[in-house]
């Protein structure tokens, strides 16, 4: 692998907790001596967090689509009747 990819791989392994104790300590020592590496670690961490939020947003949209299907599809009338009965029982 190219040097830049090797660094990305090492950062990813560090962030995902895949390094052993010795390798983790060595990596953290390298960070102390290398401020650009710290910046790269922070950026890569942010990228993975934003990907996570993007995934969460997509999943929420999938769930809303399921809700829409259950509350509109002709073959889900029994489900809707059960829910209507719960919220309209006091009326």
């Amino acid at each position, binding site marked *: *692998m190219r040097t*830049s*990819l090797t660094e*990305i*791989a090492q950062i*990813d392994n560090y962030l995902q907790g895949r390094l052993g104790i010795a390798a983790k300590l060595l990596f953290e020592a390298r960070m102390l001596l290398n401020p650009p590496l710290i*910046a*790269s670690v*922070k*950026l*890569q961490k*942010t*990228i*993975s*967090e*934003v*990907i*996570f*939020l*993007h*995934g*969460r947003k*997509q*999943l*929420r949209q*999938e*769930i*809303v689509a*399921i*809700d829409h*299907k*259950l509350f509109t599809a002709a073959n*889900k009338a029994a*489900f809707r009747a*059960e*829910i209507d009965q*719960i*919220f309209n029982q006091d009326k």
Partner: protein
Amino acid sequence: MEVTETLERKPFMATTADDRLALFEALYEEAFPAAARFVHRMGGNLEDAQDIFQDALVLFYESLTSKKVHVEISYKAYLLGICKHLWIRKAKTRSNEVHLEKWEKCLDVPDLNEAHPSANKLLSLLELAGQKCLDLLKSFYYDRLSIPLIASSFGFGSERSATVQKYKCLEKVRNEVKSKALHYEDFTD
């Protein structure tokens, strides 16, 4: 997918998007009425029940894919437990009561409203790296699929190819950030 089986306790496998949708639809149909009855008893309306249940499904998925939680009960019971917790959190926000804090600490449920600052700015850069990269990174960081599964579903010849492509996608994003002379601080304002 055999619906009755998926609602029972078994190792969670988020295999394909279609499998996940089938499982979620089955869970919605099976568990939502019980969640709705609970929310109604607690004074909530249908919209409250839908909000709570949909957030609970997200947390359900994330907790099982993270492998930090081992579910000893049925998926339905676990999901309803999350719903009850979320309702309590919502009630706490509404009434500002402090005695529920202890409850919260015991359960360690992540806050769905905790958005990353400047997430949209970085997401637009991720999109520049291409949809395939975005989907691939999502499979690693959100769906947490196994490398063999990612390799086969994305059509890579080997697991190593899938891993190297992941690093290349991360490199693309890093280069986009650098080409625009952005720094980490630009995403954390």
